[in-house]
């Protein structure tokens, strides 16, 4: 058990500070300004191009990440700490 707990604690302590960070760079397009993430339907959201909200699709399809963004936002009222934590 110690072999598992020590690395986990190290990771948690090392990145605990990032929980207080805000959205930066692509976070703004992917989360903050992504209207489909805030308002669109689930099916449409999960079928969208991952980078479509940045102004140009790239053919990348990452519905699991998009789904996690929406779940985080809905549960935390779109507060950045939930995304970082």
């Amino acid at each position, binding site marked *: 058990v110690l*072999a598992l707990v*020590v690395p986990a604690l*190290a990771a948690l302590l090392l990145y605990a500070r*990032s929980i207080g960070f805000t959205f930066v760079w692509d976070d703004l397009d*992917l989360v903050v300004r992504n209207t489909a993430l805030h308002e669109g339907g689930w099916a449409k959201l999960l079928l969208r*191009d991952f980078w479509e909200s940045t102004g140009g*699709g790239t053919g990348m399809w990452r519905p699991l990440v998009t789904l*996690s*963004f929406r779940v985080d936002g809905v549960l935390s009222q779109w507060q950045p700490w939930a995304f*970082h934590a």
Partner: protein
Amino acid sequence: VNVLVHTASAALVARLALARGLGVRTAMAAGLVFATAPALAESVAWVAGRTDAFLVLATLVALLAAGRWRMSGSRTALAAVGACVACALLAKETALILPLVLAADAADAAHAPDAAAAQARSTGARSPRSRASAPAWVALVVVLAWAGVHRCSSPRPRIRPRSRRRSVLPRWCGRIWRGSRPGLRTRRSCPLVRAGGTGGVGGMAGSRGDGDPVVGARAAPNARRTADRAVVRAAPAGGRGVADRSGCSIRRALAGLPAVGWRWRCPRSRFAFPCAHVR
């Protein structure tokens, strides 16, 4: 979520090391190295980097499930491998290599059996080697299914690539290839010269055409006319002709080569021709 995912991944790295038969200290060190690796800072501290964190987590769980499959032959473990590969693919496309990773893991287990495989042998279960590759095959099936779904349902990129193929040669040196028709354009028919040359063509249309031997002397007449129009539209009046700029002595020396089947392609345009100055 990013920090939690990274925390879980660090613990799973140590768990995987233990499952491979390493000692407690070695497993702990492996987990610590993963937890504190600076290269992972972007994936953890940046929300948009969550894709990598998810990919790593799914990969580690898939490797652990593959080990469980080798140990017990549980179909649940094999299904878990498939589910993890699917989750990894839905998080980042790099997961396409997971079948190879699992195959390498199976080969490693076959040559240096881990604790799970050793236990399976001691309990008289089926040969671990015979089923070691099953997770890799499952992952391959999942990847192929994902590729089919992705091709059929995912949105197409809006950004068209500027060039289909790029020449490996520098722009200034042009390109030679074997042609089938010896006919050369005359200077009057050269659209670049007629349009007064272009600097813009060299930057845009020229870059699109570099390395594309289809559009040129071998191309269909319609395609070539389209290329001509594109170049003429892009050419600012009064500029210096690209063909003139690239009409060096080497080109003149090569003027006789069509007789032996060689052609010279104007290096900064999207269609093949030796412009008239060659002759």
